[in-house]
């Protein structure tokens, strides 16, 4: 289990794209919204928390299709399924 987590983290750091893209997207959303809404401090303070959450959600959406697709494509999902790790654990990681 821990091995799997470490592998995924290592892949995320090394693969480029996925992880960095999600982070950059999140930052862009959070920066652009105030520009769009205008410099009204009262409005901004009300929507700030909401924007953060929505931004995080959208950023997660970017990498959603990659959760299992990559493992499926290169065959490692099959091999993980036959390995002595619980599949529920694989999903959780």
């Amino acid at each position, binding site marked *: 289990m821990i*091995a*799997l987590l470490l592998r995924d983290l290592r*892949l995320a750091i090394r*693969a480029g794209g996925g992880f960095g893209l999600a982070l950059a997207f999140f930052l862009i959303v959070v920066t652009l919204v105030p520009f769009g809404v205008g410099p009204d401090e009262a409005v901004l303070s009300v929507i700030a928390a909401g924007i953060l959450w929505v931004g995080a959600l959208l950023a997660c959406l970017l990498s959603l299709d990659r959760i299992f697709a990559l493992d499926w494509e*290169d065959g490692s999902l099959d*091999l*993980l399924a*036959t*390995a002595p790790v619980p599949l529920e654990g694989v999903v959780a990681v």
Partner: protein
Amino acid sequence: MELVVSDLTVARGGVPVLSGVSFRMGAGEVALLRGPNGSGKTTLLRTLAGLQPALDGKVSLPPEEIAYAAHADGLKATLTVAENLSFWASVYGTGAIDGALERFRLSELARRPAQNLSAGQKRRLGLARLLVTGRKVWLLDEPTVSLDSASVGIFAAAARAHLDAGGLALIATHIDLGFEAREIDVTAFRATARQGGAFDEAFA
């Protein structure tokens, strides 16, 4: 250690492909699965490995005893050879990878990312995974694809050592691996067409 398959029926996409598959293998035995493309060799191996349910019949060993190697090697392109292998070694809780690297002549490539390997080298790495699983029963689906004759020799030697250590191997292959082995022809178990297919009747 014995693998007994009795009266197994396997299906692909819900359609029975093979039925009444029965054979028995003891420790140190190897059997080659033969049959033309699409005859159900992969389906049989996947069923034995527990990746899909059997329609009927029994397999004496649980999937937990079995190491399965498919067409795809399950390598991560951005990880190095050693990292790929140590990942599987830690998943299976076996630890050391040096022996496996050595046996498949990958030691010199250990620090190279898997994406820079040739097809044959990737295959050798995929097969090296079998050694770090530490499991006795190997189910191999076309293990020699993209291997040159020297690499086939390396693989055959590794398989031989595995058998001598009391393991057993069921190998789907089209080529001669250079060792005496029993052959299991899957065409003998071809499932008969379903009776009274409602689909056909609708168009009759």
